[in-house]
């Protein structure tokens, strides 16, 4: 059995201190194998984004251990963490976090700029990523002038421009209408299927969750194992019911 790309062992995270202390994540364990697609599902405020940030090494867990390809994340040097964030992980944030007045291309090539890729190559790779997402014609536009769906595609282009091994997508379709959402979904699953990129998706959308190989249910900072055994169709309905 190969070493999982990411392995969380009973990780927890709390915010604030004293009376304001809030345990957002109370101990979640999970293994993610290379090439897998995984959905993290749960109610709003249940701790999905928190879990995702911990997995992507954007934040440090307060308890438990996180292994990255078998190595304890705590033991990784700052430089190594930065390399992982820059080269191995691509992140699609729940909000877009595009620089409003910079061009779409400039936004997309930011990870390459940080990596120190020379301008010419940066441009070529940025354009390739934009083409993949059918946004090449908008490359020179200011990011602020894109439509919601275009912005979502631009941030996906940014996440995959450095050929990551893992893409983290926090609510990638949350801001989109069903048609555009479906386009974005297709792009993500194509990347998973064709390029072997590991996909970790946080979503409310049952259909999207159902397309993933595996679903993790989070409730109040804990994994809800009672739901995970339920067949996909039925579970999806149940989840929708819980939301209504």
């Amino acid at each position, binding site marked *: 059995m190969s070493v999982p790309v990411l392995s969380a062992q009973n990780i927890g995270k709390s915010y604030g201190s004293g009376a304001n202390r809030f345990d957002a994540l109370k101990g979640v364990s999970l293994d993610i194998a290379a090439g897998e697609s995984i959905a993290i599902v749960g109610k709003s405020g249940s701790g999905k984004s928190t879990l995702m940030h911990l997995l992507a090494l954007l934040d440090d867990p307060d308890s438990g251990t996180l292994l990255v390809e078998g190595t304890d994340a705590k033991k990784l040097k700052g430089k190594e963490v930065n390399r992982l964030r820059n080269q191995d992980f691509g992140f699609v944030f729940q*909000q877009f976090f595009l620089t409003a*007045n910079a061009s779409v291309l400039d936004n997309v090539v930011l990870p390459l700029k940080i990596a*120190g890729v020379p301008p010419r190559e940066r441009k070529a790779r940025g354009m390739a990523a934009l083409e993949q997402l059918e946004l090449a014609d908008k490359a020179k536009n200011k990011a602020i002038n894109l439509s919601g769906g275009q912005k979502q595609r631009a941030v996906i282009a940014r996440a995959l421009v450095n050929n990551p091994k893992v893409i983290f997508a926090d609510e990638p379709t949350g801001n989109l209408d069903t048609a555009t959402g479906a386009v974005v979904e297709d792009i993500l699953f194509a990347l998973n299927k064709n390029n072997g990129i590991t996909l970790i998706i946080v979503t409310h959308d049952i259909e999207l969750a159902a397309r993933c190989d595996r679903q993790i249910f989070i409730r109040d900072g804990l994994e809800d194992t009672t739901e995970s055994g339920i067949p996909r169709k039925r579970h999806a309905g149940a989840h929708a019911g819980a939301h209504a």
Partner: protein
Amino acid sequence: MKFIDIVKTAIANSFRSKVRTGLTVIAIFIGAFTLTITSGIGTGVTSYIDTQVTAIGAADVLTISKAADSTSSATEGPAAYDPSKATTVSLGNGSRPGTTIQALTAKDITAIGKTTGILRVDPSVRVTPDYIEYDGNGKFELIVNAAATLTTADLAAGAQLDNSSTTDEVLLPTTYLKNLGFADAKAAIGKTVSIGITDYTGVQQEAKATVIGVQNETILGVGAGLNQHLTDGLQAIQVTGAPAGASDSYATATALFDASSTAAEITAIKDDLATQGYASQTVADTIGSFQTVINVIIGVLNAFAVIALIAAGFGIINTLLMSVQERTREIGLMKAMGMNGGRVYTLFSTEAVFIGFLGSALGALAAVGVGSVVSNILADGVFSALPGLQVVQFAPSSIAIIIGVVMLIAFLAGTLPARSAARQNPIDALRYE
């Protein structure tokens, strides 16, 4: 992130909030402008003095006078009269009218001559001619610059005075030319002028002298220079008919020492003279005290400029703190994409340094422009009597230093905001609204 990309990004960032950057740049501009102007004045005045008084030939000369009487201080009143010692100098021997100073007598001159290290000593005689005339063009007052033989003149034409010459030589300031009837400086060289002087009995006599050179007007004493031979000749006329001993006291004497003396040896001679009760100054001392005054004035002006720059430094801190706050999310995003803290720090300090560079380069440039124009206007106006004086002069090296110092101040000011940017945790920064 490559350094070149950091610099480009930093420059682009500083232009993103134009008003804020602009205001900070203005603050730095004012400081750099002032600093450049004051340093320009320093350079201008110093270089003027240098050309005026390059005391090349006179480095081996001491001007000696009686040290001020210690018993006659302001609090204790005048000292008791001592007939063996005190002779106040009479007019015509170098004292200022209305003042009494202790004079050097023939005895003093001998004593000074015997001091080790002194090669020769001459009492300074001050001649007061009545007029100067050329070719019947009318008589004009002649003011004698007693220091002329001690310094090397800034010549407009001709040659320096020669004290060992046996001809009577006069060095005229450019301002005398027109009145005396010379077309220009060159035309005056070699011409013979008449100098009128009244002797002790009140009879006016006339002496002839050759114009050896024409000198640009100096700030260290106006008037014509006379060589030793002419001075001696005029002095001889001046004391004609005087009772013996009447002119036997002098305000100052000039002593010659070995030109190859070291600074320590010169100090030893001066100390020796001091213990005997004589005050002595080399030309360098005289010029030195003059330059000290100018340096103090320039130092004070510079201090004001530095205060302005320190104030501007706080402007930079403020600008960058706002900039860091405004871009918190961007910093979070860059860190989430693997940018390390050091690079974030460099990015923001580069922005600070760039703002500093912009302000100081513009300030220095404006100062050079304004300074040059003002200097030219002054040279033709207020300072037209001092040919060759460019009050404001700019040395490229000092401008480079000013820009460098301002950029350093900007860097230091940027340290605090840059550190707070570098320390952001990516998720906290991204969550910032």
